[in-house]
């Protein structure tokens, strides 16, 4: 058996070291590692975690690492996974701040990033469909993700409001369907 502390640290270290473009870009890597490879979380728990990490203040990906660390090994696990997620950024940025002042004007760096950016967008788009399947979205609930996405994309609504509205909606729907037990519909 591998040491769980080392394993979780190393997993989040790799996630931190290879995600460009911040928070959302880290989701596909975290999902692949935590849900599919290591099986530390179920797909459903993972989606709940996305909601929690988004609702709490702070850095999205770090919030996710804190939760997963806690689930694995309590607060000690949290410290380990947070360190893993933060350290790569810290080391890389310090190295850049100390040495490469012309980093962003280097033509090779620019070329590499021109190749990476569309791939990152694809990496974010792909798990959307996997997650849609595991949340059990059907024709009747399809409008929820579609309307949420359009509100954010076209109208620039903050995701925080979407989360609040969806949580409230779920709560109210839960109360309504409890009052009508003969109609066990789920939102």
């Amino acid at each position, binding site marked *: 058996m591998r040491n769980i502390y080392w394993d979780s640290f190393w997993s989040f270290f790799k996630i931190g070291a290879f995600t460009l473009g911040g928070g959302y870009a880290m989701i596909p890597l975290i999902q692949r590692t935590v849900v599919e490879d290591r099986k530390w979380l179920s797909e459903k728990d993972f989606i709940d975690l996305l909601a929690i990490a988004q609702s709490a203040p702070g850095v999205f990906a770090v919030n996710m690492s804190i939760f997963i660390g806690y689930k694995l090994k309590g607060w000690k696990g949290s410290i380990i996974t947070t360190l893993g997620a933060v350290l790569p950024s810290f080391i890389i940025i310090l190295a850049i701040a100390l040495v490469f002042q012309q980093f962003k004007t280097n033509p090779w760096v620019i070329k*590499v990033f021109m190749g990476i950016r569309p791939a990152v967008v694809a990496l974010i*788009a792909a798990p959307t469909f996997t997650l849609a399947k595991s949340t059990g979205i059907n024709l009747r609930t399809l409008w929820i993700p579609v309307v949420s996405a359009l509100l*954010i994309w076209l109208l620039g609504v903050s995701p925080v409001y979407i989360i609040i509205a969806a949580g409230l909606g779920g709560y109210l729907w839960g109360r309504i369907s409890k009052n009508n037990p003969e109609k066990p519909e789920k939102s």
Partner: protein
Amino acid sequence: MILFLKLFYSFLKIGLFGFGGGYAMLSLIQGEVVTLHHWISPSEFTDIVAISQMTPGPIGINSATYVGYTAVVNAGYSSTIGILGSVTATLAVTLPSFVLMLLISKFFLKYQKNTVVESVFKGLRPAIVGLLAAAALVLMNSENFGSLQSDSYQFYISVAIFIVSFAATKFYRVNPILMIVICGVLGAILY
């Protein structure tokens, strides 16, 4: 010493009120370090944002590390002491969410089966799928793909990279890290 305390306090606030991810956090950082304290000039800040986006890791952490270093060096200290500035800012920006997330995790894992919590999350889950879709849609812009008018070569290559990466990760389960490395190499070769 006073500078370090102020830096810590500023980034503590940024960490506590930074809802909505990296980009929302950037405007808070700007307000504190550029507008309020003048630790960093506006053009330095723009550079820091660009580098934070171009380097791996969460943007909030990247910019905190960079701002902490630059603020201390700008105040006339050596680059070794600048590293302490990085440590201060990064620690401070992570601390509030660390404490909060620890409490939330504890609460969630305990009350996960509670019917109220369960129905709230039943509403949240489909919306989260929408959030993720929106994140991908927002990023489909000329900054990431180039534009058909000004640089059609970059645009077509970008679209091809997008389609191949999407198919590779979705249908062939190619590891996302490997995909990023491959596309970086492709960029260096093709452009």
